[in-house]
């Protein structure tokens, strides 16, 4: 049941006027004036084109924009003439933009979106990231369709990724979540997703809101929560995920810290599920993934390798407290030859799991643990990019699959140690 304190009287009045909806599209915003109009238009167009008969609401939960984002969303509100044109939905396309006055962050906004979905008995919920500039109308049926058709409770995205794109996902989160939770989910950090009302209601009832789990890691938590509680997962092939100007992105150490905190928090929250879980199962993917578009900034591979070499040496006493001897030896050896950098899959998998155990055991402050992993992550990523500098997409995909399998191989011993901790 939704926490009624989330909903102002004015919002409730608007929800009463909206009534039950078939599809709710949630857009959590914070200063997205430059992108939100196109996003709303894409969503509206997707509804009109693919769900012309559906009762739909585009719901914007804004966590304190001062650039006019809510007004821009509201100005896009359609009127009764929305039924005239063939390209528009048959039913009124509802639009609500409301401020959220609680703890800022995407987690709070998602909580509000789920509360609205619960109150309006939405059959399907789609969440869109307003920082993304490449959302097309086709993303709406891709994310909502499998839910409406009863094929899934959670539809995670799949994007065509260039080799250097989102290494935090491809090198760390994807293989780790796959090995731990036993599902081949390609994008556990779901920027966009679709879900059922049952899942939204389930999330609302979990005692995680307002805690660190959802404050910075709500995307991963939702994916992990679905897997851990038996909700049917699926994936939808979307187009490339292009972000708004990178100036908005936080620095890598901050992002890395947030992601690692979220990963570790989820693993601790769900250890009764993932510890006994065996080999991974495939998560069905709807749609066809098109070719990757490499538009991101070129990574400074040499700089990453240099940082790796320097920090491994500097952090050796700390690494001794975290890593086993064979792993430390491997890492040290890799760091010793940055010009011919190699950091193989099994070594990387062992590194990650041993760091997780250190985090779990709290052998030092958790922040210290995760920040110590960062240079190793840079080393592994640099090694991968060097190895595949001239590889084709199929080779890169095979290499990433191989990495996931290495994580799966490493999991049982890590799980055994986790239980003892």
């Amino acid at each position: 049941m939704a926490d009624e304190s989330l909903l102002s009287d004015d919002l409730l009045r608007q929800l009463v006027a909206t009534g039950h909806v078939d599809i709710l599209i949630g857009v959590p915003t914070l200063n997205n004036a430059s992108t939100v109009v196109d996003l709303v238009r894409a969503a509206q167009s997707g509804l009109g084109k693919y769900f012309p008969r559906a009762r739909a609401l585009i719901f914007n939960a804004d966590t304190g924009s001062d650039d006019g984002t809510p007004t821009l969303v509201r100005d896009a509100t359609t009127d009764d003439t929305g039924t005239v044109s063939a390209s528009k939905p048959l039913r009124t396309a509802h639009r609500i933009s409301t401020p959220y006055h609680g703890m800022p962050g995407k987690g709070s906004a998602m909580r509000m979106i789920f509360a609205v979905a619960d109150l309006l008995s939405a059959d399907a919920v789609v969440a869109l990231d307003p920082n993304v500039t490449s959302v097309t109308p086709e993303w709406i049926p891709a994310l909502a369709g499998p839910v409406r058709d009863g094929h899934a409770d959670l539809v995670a995205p799949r994007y065509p990724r260039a080799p250097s794109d989102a290494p935090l996902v491809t090198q760390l989160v994807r293989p780790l979540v796959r090995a731990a939770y036993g599902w081949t989910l390609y994008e556990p950090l779901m920027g966009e997703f679709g879900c059922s009302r049952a899942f939204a209601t389930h999330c609302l009832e979990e005692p995680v809101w307002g805690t660190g789990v959802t404050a910075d890691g709500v995307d991963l938590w939702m994916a992990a929560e679905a897997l851990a509680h038996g909700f049917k997962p699926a994936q939808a092939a979307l187009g490339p995920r292009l972000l708004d100007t990178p100036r908005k992105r936080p620095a890598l150490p901050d992002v890395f810290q947030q992601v690692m905190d979220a990963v570790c928090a989820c693993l601790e929250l769900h250890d009764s599920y993932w510890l006994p879980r065996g080999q991974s199962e495939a998560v069905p993917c709807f749609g066809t993934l098109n070719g990757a578009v490499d538009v991101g900034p070129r990574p400074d591979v040499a700089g990453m390798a240099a940082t790796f070499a320097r920090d491994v040496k500097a952090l050796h006493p700390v690494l001794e407290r975290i890593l086993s001897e064979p792993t430390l030896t491997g890492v040290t050896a890799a760091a010793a030859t940055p010009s011919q950098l190699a950091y193989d899959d099994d070594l990387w998998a062992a590194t990650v799991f041993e760091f997780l155990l250190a985090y779990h055991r709290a052998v030092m402050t958790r922040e210290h643990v995760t920040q110590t992993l960062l240079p190793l992550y840079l080393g592994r990523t640099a090694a991968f990019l060097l190895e595949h500098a001239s590889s084709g997409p199929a080779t890169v995909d095979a290499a990433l699959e191989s990495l996931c399998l290495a994580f799966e191989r490493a999991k049982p011993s890590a799980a055994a140690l986790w239980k003892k901790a």
Partner: protein
Amino acid sequence: MSADDPLWYKDAVIYQLHVKTFFDSDGDGVGDFRGLTSRLDYLESLGVNTIWLLPTFPSPFRDDGYDIADYYSIHPMYGTLEDFKAFLAAAHERKLRVVTELVLNHTSDRHPWFQEARSSRDNPRRDWYVWSDTDDKYRGVRIIFLDTETSNWAWDPVSKQYYWHRFFSHQPDLNYDNPAVREEMWQVMKFWAELGVDGFRVDAVPYLVEREGTTCEGMPETHEVIKFLRAQLDRHFPGRMLLAEANQVPELVRPYFGDGDEFHMAFHFPLMTRMFMAIRLEDRGPLTDIIRRTPALPDNCQWAVFLRNHDELTLEMVTPEEREFMYDEYARDPVARLNLGIRRRLAPLLEGDRRRVELMNGLLMSLPGSPIVYYGDEIGMGDNVYLGDRNGVRTPMQWSGGWNGGFSSADPERLAFAVISNPVYGYQAVNVLAQERSSHTLLNWMRRLIRVRRSTKVFSRGSLTLLDAPNQRVIAYVRAFEKEQVLVVNNLSGTVQAVELDLSSLAGAIPVEMFGQSLFPRIGTQPYLLTLGPHAFYWFRLRRL
């Protein structure tokens, strides 16, 4: 309704019926004027004040009487001209006006005019119809009866030329470029007006005149024909009414009113379609859209509004997506589809849901225009889509649970159309006699509805102001005429709804619900909260005391 009010049609509540299937007085299996006359008390008790008759002229009945073979007579199976006069007198005695059909556009190919015209190219009547050596003329003009016709031209093997027909090929179009045809049709109108007919429902109006390179619909010359007939009617029979059938969007129908010098009334086809769409979508958008698009009319004109009639529920004026939706929702069985429409009656369309039937009638009676009730819909009669063409919605009136539903004493095999006899809508379950026995039946509810509608002129003559209710499942409007105001609130949804209406412009008024005379709290400046049950509607007379 004042007997001498020239604007009587504005206050009309019209009952449309087919003499053939209303009541058979002589047991030959076909309804007739004597039978209809014997049932006028029923119509009077229903509360309607105008009767519209489907064609009763001599006809080969290849289009259920719209293929006329003689404009100056009554088909013998319906009785005699004397029977008709007696019916007319009896109706007028009960203050019931009578509107008859006037099929201007075409005749039957059996009509003597056409038989003469085709007999030789030199015949004086030859130019009464539209002929061509080729079927190339007027290329691109749409075919209306898509399910049966492939061309608007038909070959006449007798005179070896093509003749023009916008409807069935056995219905050749008259040539209104010929002044003799106009004059003759005026003589037809005059004949019936002299007998006392109060108005004419003019069939297929847009198609009277053809011009190359056009859609051949609504030509300026067509309007000249109408103006001529209207002027003649006004001059010789003031107070008689012309009602246009122009199956088009309201913007395109508007010209048929002219400056108040063409038709007095015209059907509002898209309003009907959009009522069905809105109630199934549970969204007022389709309705508010068409209401806003409906142009204002000259003061002496009025829309004719309806839910169902003797034809299919037209889907010509909707988008392909909307048509698909309507087919999916109302005609999943393809046999219910005909041309670009759905051949079903009101009750089956609404799955026999009494609440929806009531809401639809509530909308019909409260929106601008003179409402038309199609015979049998006041008791929730069903249909028989297997009868072919549109005959399935023209089955005998179900008067009782007895022999042939009380319609005729003939053997059932002899009836013009079989009586509906299935367990849901059959005459044993749905009939007038049974519904007379309880005050809660649809029939008696309809009587109350019509009585309330006619208790004020606000519905028949008043303005309409849409209210911007925040809840899209609710459509609310204010009807106002002179000093009277009525607030109408309709829940299009099948679930309970709450709505807060901004009625600050009506602050101080006390709403009095018109069916139960219940008082509601005085309207203030704050939003006025109403809750409505599934498909419920309220009519509030606003009193300032």
